[in-house]
């Protein structure tokens, strides 16, 4: 019984982080139809900035929003200075279907090596501002700490905020319109380019928050968030790549699956499981468990 509860608790906490990363990927996909593989790099740079803040001021609570802002700025910059010129030039020829993917890969490389040059390749630690000790209920200590509460709480807050923005505000409406019918949106007076940049900014912020939350439980190095990207992508696909709620649920589901597999089978399968899940979802229900009508085919 204890094992079961442990599995669920661990799964929820990790799942929350995957949800955030999935959220970042879905945000960009919805507004630009691009899977931003550079998200891992953007998030890691933002997390390093957060780390700088913590190291200099000792204040984690300050680092979180600053990292988020850094993430937003980087995201917007990438969209404006890289993705936009690309879509103008690379819309024909052999490269067209894959241009954006390759661009984000190149960007990932730049961010990786840039981060390694600036902050060196060794692992940096980030301490959680609240206790990481398991909570004791009765006689048992459960693998759930105040830090985990922080993670889940922040992830929920981010998701609810974004959901609210997307569904209830004019900005959200503009974001959704620019994604599906950019021409019509433009004709209706929406500044599509600027709106797209805002979408990327939100995504960058989400990724940065995910990075700052996950680092206390592991370590920070230029490549430390790459795996999170893969997990985030799988979570996003599970959720359907279209809906924010889907991303959230996909993340939780993935987290729970990984933790159950880890506990009952073994953590040697940590890297294999996401791939298996991905293939299963893509083959059986490519539109995701939650997703809607849009198909996956070219």
């Amino acid at each position, binding site marked *: 019984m*204890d*094992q079961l509860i*442990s*599995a669920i608790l*661990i799964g929820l*906490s*990790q799942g929350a982080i995957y949800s955030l990363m999935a959220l970042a990927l879905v945000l960009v996909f919805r507004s630009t139809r691009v899977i931003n593989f550079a998200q891992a790099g953007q998030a890691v740079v933002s997390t390093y900035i957060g780390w700088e803040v913590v190291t200099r001021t000792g204040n984690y609570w300050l680092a979180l929003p600053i990292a988020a802002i850094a993430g937003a700025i980087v995201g917007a910059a990438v969209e404006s200075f890289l993705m936009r010129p690309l879509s103008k030039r690379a819309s024909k020829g052999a490269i067209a279907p894959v241009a954006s993917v390759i661009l984000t890969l190149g960007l990932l490389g730049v961010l990786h090596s840039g981060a*390694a040059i600036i902050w*060196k*390749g*060794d*692992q940096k*630690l980030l*301490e959680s501002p609240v206790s*990481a*000790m*398991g909570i*004791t209920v009765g006689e048992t*200590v*459960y*693998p759930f*700490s105040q830090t985990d509460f922080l993670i889940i709480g922040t992830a929920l807050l981010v998701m609810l905020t974004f959901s609210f923005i997307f569904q209830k505000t004019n900005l959200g409406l503009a974001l959704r319109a620019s994604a599906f019918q950019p021409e019509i949106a433009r004709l209706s007076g929406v500044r599509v380019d600027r709106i797209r940049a805002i979408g990327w900014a939100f995504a960058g912020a989400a990724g940065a928050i995910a990075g700052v939350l996950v680092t*206390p*439980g*592991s*370590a920070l*190095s230029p*490549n*430390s968030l790459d795996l999170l990207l893969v997990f985030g992508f799988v979570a996003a696909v599970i959720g359907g790549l279209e809906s924010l709620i889907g991303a959230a649920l996909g993340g939780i589901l993935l987290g729970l699956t990984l*933790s159950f597999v*880890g*506990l009952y089978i*073994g*953590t*040697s*399968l*940590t*890297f294999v499981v996401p791939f298996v899940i991905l293939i299963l979802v893509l083959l059986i229900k490519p539109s995701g468990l939650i997703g809607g009508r849009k198909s996956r085919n070219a």
Partner: protein
Amino acid sequence: MMRFTRSKKGMIGSAIVAAAALAVSALPAQAASTETQGVTATQITLGISQPTNGPASYGYNKVAPAMDAYFKYVNANGGVNGRKIKLIVKNDGYKVTDAVNKTVELISRDKVFALVGSLGTANNIAVSNAVDLAGQGIPSLYVNSGFSGFANKSTYKTMFPLFPTYYMETKVLGEYIKKNFPGKKVGIIYQDDDFGDDALAGLKQAGVTPAASIPYASLSQSAATAATWVSKLKTADAEVVIMYGVTSAAAFALGTAYALGYKPQWIIDSVGGVSATLQLLGIQAPLLNGVITSSFLPASTDTTDEYIKLFQTINTKYNVAGTKFDDNVVTGMNTAMMTVAALKAAGKNLTRSGVIKAIETKGKTFPSASLAQPQFSTTSHVGYNGFWIGTYDATGTLKPETGKYKIYTTDSGSGAVKVSTWKRPAMPAKGLPK
């Protein structure tokens, strides 16, 4: 029209290559490497390939500079039979392809005499195969790996491991557990590759059957995965837990167990159990109190040991400014000392086969800081074969059991674990091998 263009492009491409070829072929062909490559009247060039930065370099990146510091010390004191040593360090990021490429560079371009201290089991195997070290007679001294296969002289004619193997280590630990924790349930967390598999096998050879065997995929360690390990260990009621993995995994295991209120008797392997590195990874010294680990070199904090005292002085004087003295530095300097011993023993007429012969015939008497005797012989290339067991105190200092270094020796096979009676000879004058 397009098809023609493509074919034409192919021809143009060929033409460019042809031009380049003609330009390049103006260069004279070069000879293969020889017995005395890297040796001049005044210098011996050595090479090492290891991760110097990046995620795999933690701790290891102090070894090469420490080796260099010792070499500088030797150079300042007459060198080796009148020659100074130059060490060329290449970074391979712990990746196999890079290790092979950099080693080819060291041998073909930098023209090194021998390789020393190359890191990584998979890397060294690949290098040995690709470069054909044995066939070319290129010595690879004191490789930094615990793989027992390297001691096999017929497969690895020119390679000499130095450190005792993982198999030996867990046999020793297994015996220790049987003697000191009889009847208690044992758990083991191990890295899911040859590093950890070897260890599990050694434990079983010692007759210890773990109640919980928990493999983890290399690089998957984190607080979350560590929580699953702890959960499994708790369910199995393990009271003694062996943590056989790299330092970062050990750090997570210790930290997470503490956070979950799980307090078994921890036993960490000599690789993952380095106090300085663990503390850098966030494990505070008090958390190390009572943790058992093994080693074969004297503890870097043991200032009564003459070798440690010497190494500390060399570190201050010749190493990169500000380098903190720890076990990694001791390891590097010790390997360097063994290297110098081998070079000196090969005599003034320094050749590759001469060095190899010197280690095989005189290696047992080379001065080194190790408390276990090197076992080099003409039939086997096994290096050190033993460990002492120590327990950390609340300041993170490792204290040997019973206060004195008690060395347990064994082999990488089915031989028994014995307490060694070998006494380490006194350090030669000024720490310079004769």
